[in-house]
């Protein structure tokens, strides 16, 4: 009995001591913004090795960008896009918002999370490409009337670039 208790105590102590080490080695980071959850895995990304600060910033800023996207398309407000998008991605989403306004349409997302993998980090450290598998419930509304509703899972290829104060999405394209 005594030996059994001792063994249990040793196992507990080892597990307690090993936990932080295991956490440190875990390649998956999680971030959330406005209810958007992003699981970020940078294992094997190259050619540049990812820095610790970048590894924290990317999932945080990508989650914030999706939060901006979903809010902008739900409220038909293009100005919200500025916090997460630049360049082509911002132009395209702004055009989508303008068209939604014109046709009286808006969409609602219930985001169930993003599995994001870093696939390319440029040698000079200014651009990172991500592959994101996202699942969400989509509702399309004409005025206040729901005209379409369905769960969606799709994969996006995103290109994030460094801006003055954060990473922003420069390209966002659904992958076939």
């Amino acid at each position, binding site marked *: 009995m005594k030996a059994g208790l001792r063994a249990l105590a040793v196992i507990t102590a080892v597990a307690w001591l090993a936990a932080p080490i295991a956490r440190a080695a875990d390649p998956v980071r999680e971030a959330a913004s406005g209810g958007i959850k992003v699981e970020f895995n940078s294992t094997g990304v190259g050619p540049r090795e990812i820095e610790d600060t970048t590894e924290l910033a990317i999932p945080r800023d990508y989650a914030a960008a999706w939060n901006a996207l979903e809010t902008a398309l739900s409220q038909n407000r293009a100005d919200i896009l500025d916090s997460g998008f630049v360049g082509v991605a911002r132009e*395209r989403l702004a*055009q*989508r918002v303008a068209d939604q306004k014109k046709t009286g349409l808006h*969409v609602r997302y219930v985001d169930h999370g993003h599995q994001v993998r870093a*696939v*390319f980090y440029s*040698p000079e450290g200014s651009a990172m490409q991500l592959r994101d598998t996202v699942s969400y419930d989509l509702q399309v509304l004409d005025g206040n009337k729901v005209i*379409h509703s369905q769960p969606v899972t799709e994969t996006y290829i995103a290109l994030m670039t460094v801006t003055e104060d954060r990473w922003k999405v420069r*390209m966002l394209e659904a992958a076939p």
Partner: protein
Amino acid sequence: MRRLVQALLIAAVCLFAAYAARAAELSAPERVSAGTGATLHTRGSGEATLWIIGPASVEKKQVRLGEDVNLQPQSLRIAGRYLAIVRQGAATDSAWFEVLPAAPANVNFLARPSRVPVDRRDVISGVAFVLDAYRNLVLEATPVRFSLSVPDAPAVTRIESSKLGIAWVRLDSTRKQGAAQFIASAGDAEVRRVVQETASDPCNLRMRATSAGNHIVVETDPVRDCSGNPVPDGTIVTFTQVDAKGRSTVDARVKKGIARAVLPSSDNATISVASGVVLGNEIHLGGGQ
């Protein structure tokens, strides 16, 4: 008789339900290429409302069910998934279709750095983003040709296959200085950047000294890097004289390839020359040497 009427009524209800269920039906091609247009097929009869929701657009139009709907090429330029919804009264049908990027037609090219010393390993990087005519990232693997050349020297060429629209390369700087043309091309698209390759640190720094009355004139041979490129004018060369009176140091700039300085005369002095971390020869004056 009563049963027959009931059966007929049930059959009529079923037929009506089946008709109502297909009151507005829609089918779309699975995928089309960007900028090529597409045709949606509808079934049913009467007027209906059709929405086409794309990554960067929303179109709303009235259609007649049973007729094909042609989507114009300019409506389908942006790659991504499109949702088509047709609605007639309470009946709705929808179809997804994909617009795939068209053939490579543009390259965005990031070349770093803009200025680099010659003959260094892996110091020049190029990243090419392969785009179609509508600025969609071409996700299919595409060969991208990178070429780096300076005048009067052979070009270094590498062909890399793009992955998810991106190809990259890391190259050594050439042994010859000059304005290197760094070119990335995919299909017919070609983008050119200039990387200024400059002479590296001085190499085999040598000087000579001549006595001129009450001072000593020191002058280097033409200052070159290890590949034989003359270092740029303005490069600092430091002459140091140590004698019984102490140490005198003069920083001189390379002018027309040569650095020159005037030092105080001395009966017994050691003069050395250096540039950055590179040391040159030493000269001993007087003292029988």
